[in-house]
């Protein structure tokens, strides 16, 4: 069962068993399937969610993205990642 949480960089997020991330060829997008719900991710959300694996902390995910997108300031990426993950956590698409 999920509990209400406010995400921080120390957390290690993962998808609950009922939510499944996959790439959809037909739509050319990453999507999350959940009971009678589909969450279509945009390009950046898709890149972030691929790093959500239950092993990497949010801090590590951000660091990975900073390396990948050289030039973007860490604080901007950190803010975007947390802002993207938080609503998913509130909807139960992400647990710790």
């Amino acid at each position, binding site marked *: *069962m*999920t*509990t*209400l*949480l406010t995400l921080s960089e120390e957390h290690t997020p993962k998808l*609950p*068993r*009922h939510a*499944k991330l*996959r790439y*959809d*060829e*037909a*739509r050319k*997008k990453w*999507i999350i*399937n*959940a*009971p*009678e*719900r*589909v*969450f*279509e*991710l*945009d*390009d*950046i*959300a898709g890149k972030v969610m691929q790093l959500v694996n239950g092993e990497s902390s949010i801090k590590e995910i951000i660091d990975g993205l900073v390396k990948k997108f050289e030039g973007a300031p860490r604080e901007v990426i950190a803010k975007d990642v947390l802002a*993207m993950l938080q609503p998913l956590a*509130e*909807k*139960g698409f992400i647990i710790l």
Partner: protein
Amino acid sequence: MTETKIEIEKSETQKSFSANKEKLQIPYAVLCELTHRCPLSCPYCSNPVELEMKSNEIDTQTWKKALSEAVKIGILQAHFSGGEPTSRKDLEELVQHASSIGLYTNLITSGVLINEERLKKLYDAGLDHVQVSFQDTDPENSNRIAGYKGHEKKLHTAKLIRKVGLPLTVNAVMHRQNLHNLESMIDMAVELDAERLEVAQVQYYGWALKNQTAFLPTREQLDNATEIVETARIRLKGILAIDYVVPDYYARRPKSCMGGWGRQFLNITPAGKVLPCHAAESLNFLNFDNIKDRSLSWIWEHSEAFNKFRGTSWMPEPCQSCDRKEIDWGGCRCQAFALTGNQNATDPTCELSPYRHVLDEPLANVGKEEIPDFIYRKIKVKRNIK
């Protein structure tokens, strides 16, 4: 079984719609009605009034072919329903197949025919989620509504579902005769460790329309229920998600039925007919193509039934010039036809409909009439009309 729908959410940057909304959409979900056989006989069953017999059911290979074709046209989710889908012995095989080709798999069940061993097999086959229906929390009333003594077994099954590690949704169809137990239904879902509760008010087509007086709640009951759900949603945030479907008789504008005709969803009947919604056979003037004869891709694109009410060009006034026509897509065709006899009519649940009065009569009498006996769902032998 009960109605299924799918919510589509998009991350922020993708909310703008494409310019051409009439173009063919990629469907999201297929509802596989494996059988109409069911030990329960709920008087609000969403199956058609004319039920298919076992001898007309399509075989395992045909279902597998349909699932494979579903993936090819972009479908993401397969919902296995019925009737009672666990009456089919090949359920595990179909779930395994669907899962192996990347479909998200959901089992919609009454829970009365399944044991722990079979649940484990389904888990191993890759089943992603189970939805169990409850008729009430009061065992006696629950059994009376279902026409079957299954309440205790349902509770047991729900616990086994969590025990084997499957996520659970409790589906509670609520109405005049059980809304007083809504709070205990929410408590029960929490106790069963469900992740979701669907509070679905009866929608009046087919069997439910025959039993309308027995089910239609009063305005007071409905408002009370809405308040209970809203309070519980706040209290249980992060613990239990509650989906709430209001009966559209009390709405001012129609619901976006199936997210629009032929836009997101298709339904395959036990006999292999492919429908734009599970109630579409009530539109008895439509011809439906069968998965035995045609590919799903051809049917989605070319079937007369799918194109009949697709988009907005079929709409009459006041729908045609309505700024909500691409929000509600004209509401529900089955309801419009059943209540007005006119397939193109504005959904009578809309306050702008010239037929709105057909709902006002039942609504004016709600709660005043004595509760009639149920007309239970049952299979009657169909004559073969070729």
